[in-house]
């Protein structure tokens, strides 16, 4: 906190502060706060075939969680979303950390080039990534099969990766990891670079190996970043939609095995083929997503951040 703040006359609220705050507060409230609150409100209503809305309390939530038509879809979407998140957490983030650790070494030549190239997929839109990978994985083109054969995994060469319930979601999760690994890499890199050299020197003088230095000195120092990466991954994954929509379409097949909350929401809200959309149930799914994300963020803020704050520099 900057102690040297300009202290103002406390009797009346200074007009210029209002002027400074107004544009941001108005746009933010109108297009962010209001829609979020209104969506939650809408989830308490139901509408008939002519579009008239009636208040029904928490019935939509009850229906979503108990109705035999809705409950399996909700459960499936949440479980798939957890798997999607877990793969990011335990594949994407460690790879990001490894790459960042390598790139933070001053002795690796061409660090800037590696860094730039590895980050390239991250700047492309998910739509393009989705299409690129769906043609690469398409059995019609056979690229993925050729690749697997060339590294001696012939028995997997003809697997329809996006067509089997057992492989579709892990495959798409890995495609997503491939695209987004640049973000944790950059965040970890920034944190690693910020560690004062003296600390590492001191450990070296004590005879620690590079491995030991990393885990005993560096890693504890970048723990706050680990937390930030974790919570960003969580929010991003529970809000994901584009990749599944692009590759598997709204039905998130096969047999809903790639259905995550984002596609479930979209399909419910807008409908599909002969089934009309259902805005109030859509809002209810959005409400569930809101609660899940909020829970994750609160857990991070009160569970992780507080504890880790003590080791922060």
């Amino acid at each position: 906190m900057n102690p040297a703040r300009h202290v103002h006359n406390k009797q009346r609220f200074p007009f210029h502060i209002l002027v400074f705050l107004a544009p941001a507060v108005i746009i933010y409230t109108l297009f962010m706060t209001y829609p979020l609150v209104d969506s939650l409100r809408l989830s308490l209503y139901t509408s008939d075939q002519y579009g008239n809305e009636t208040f029904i309390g928490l019935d939509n939530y009850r229906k979503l969680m108990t109705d035999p038509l809705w409950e399996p879809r909700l459960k499936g979407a949440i479980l798939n979303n957890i798997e999607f998140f877990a793969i990011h957490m335990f594949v994407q983030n460690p790879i990001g950390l490894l790459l960042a650790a390598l790139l933070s070494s001053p002795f690796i030549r061409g660090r800037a080039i590696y860094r730039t190239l590895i980050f390239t997929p991250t700047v492309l839109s998910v739509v393009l990534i989705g299409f690129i990978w769906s043609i690469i994985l398409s059995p019609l083109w056979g690229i993925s099969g050729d690749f697997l054969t060339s590294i001696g995994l012939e028995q997997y060469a003809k697997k329809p990766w996006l067509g089997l319930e057992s492989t579709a979601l892990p495959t798409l999760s890995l495609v997503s990891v491939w695209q987004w690994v640049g973000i944790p890499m950059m965040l970890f890199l920034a944190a690693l670079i910020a560690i004062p050299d003296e600390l590492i020197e001191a450990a070296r003088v004590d005879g620690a190996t590079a491995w030991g230095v990393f885990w005993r000195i560096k890693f504890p120092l970048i723990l706050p970043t680990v937390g930030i990466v974790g919570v960003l991954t969580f929010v991003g994954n529970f809000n994901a939609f584009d990749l599944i929509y692009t590759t598997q379409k709204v039905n998130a097949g096969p047999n809903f095995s790639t259905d995550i909350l984002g596609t479930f929401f979209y399909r419910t809200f807008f409908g599909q083929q002969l089934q009309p959309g259902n805005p109030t149930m859509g809002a209810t799914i959005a409400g569930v997503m809101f609660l899940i994300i909020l829970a994750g963020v609160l857990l991070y803020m009160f569970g992780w951040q507080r504890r880790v704050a003590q080791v922060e520099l």
Partner: protein
Amino acid sequence: MLSLSSLSHRLRPAHSLQLLGAHAILLVYTALALFPIVLVLINSFKTRRAVFKTPYALPNSETWSTIGYETVFKRANFPDYFLNSLIVTVSALILILIAGTMAAWALAEYRFPGNNIMGLYLALGIMIPIRLGTVSILRLVVDVGLIDTLWALILVYTASGLPLAIFVLTNFMKQVPRDLKDAARVDGASEYRIYRMILPLVRPAIGTVMVFNMIPIWNDLWFPLILAPSERNKTVTLGAQTFLGQYIIDWNAVLASLTLAAIPVVILYIVFSRQLIRGLTAGAVK
């Protein structure tokens, strides 16, 4: 690991082995990152038969074909899509910067009742994705007559970009030396004038905010699909998505349009990669 701290270590064989290993990992990963993109690029210049028969070969005089690009230019308005994306992204960034710096200035500079609560309120949006309000945004946008206009997109992106912008900018503005501001106040400068005076001092933060917001706005599919889906308002992401959906059967057109949609972004990225990376790393230490 490999963060060696003394030059003398570098010459020892163990370390050159370590270096070799590090380069090997980085090279393999770089190849993995670029392979799909390069594959699409080279195949976009081949005949359809060659795409399927010899996918890894570079196009030669026999297999060279630009038929895909011809289809794309004839059937899709990519220049218009780019213009729309540019209008939306630039406008939203400008609004984010103006409204964001003003609000951040108010939060950083003045002590007023509710300062902390206001800061918290505005920061909440960093964590809550705006997509969850889609249902109501659509209704709101219809009610105010902005449906299927670029304005709908600009306002939504501004609202969703503001929280992070304000958060980062507030932290930077708190570090602006006090003497400068006090000197200006002694000279009788208005608060508005002081605000404008400090803007150049937080330029690195403004860069950070720009890059953090630019990529997601440019690449978003969701809101263009919902708020501005008509042909004349399509952004390049939506344009590519619908074109790809329509011509998925025609692989030449698919490969060409993927290349066309990706290449400008990749070129821009390579040109600005330094700023982008500085922005990312600067944002991270906050």
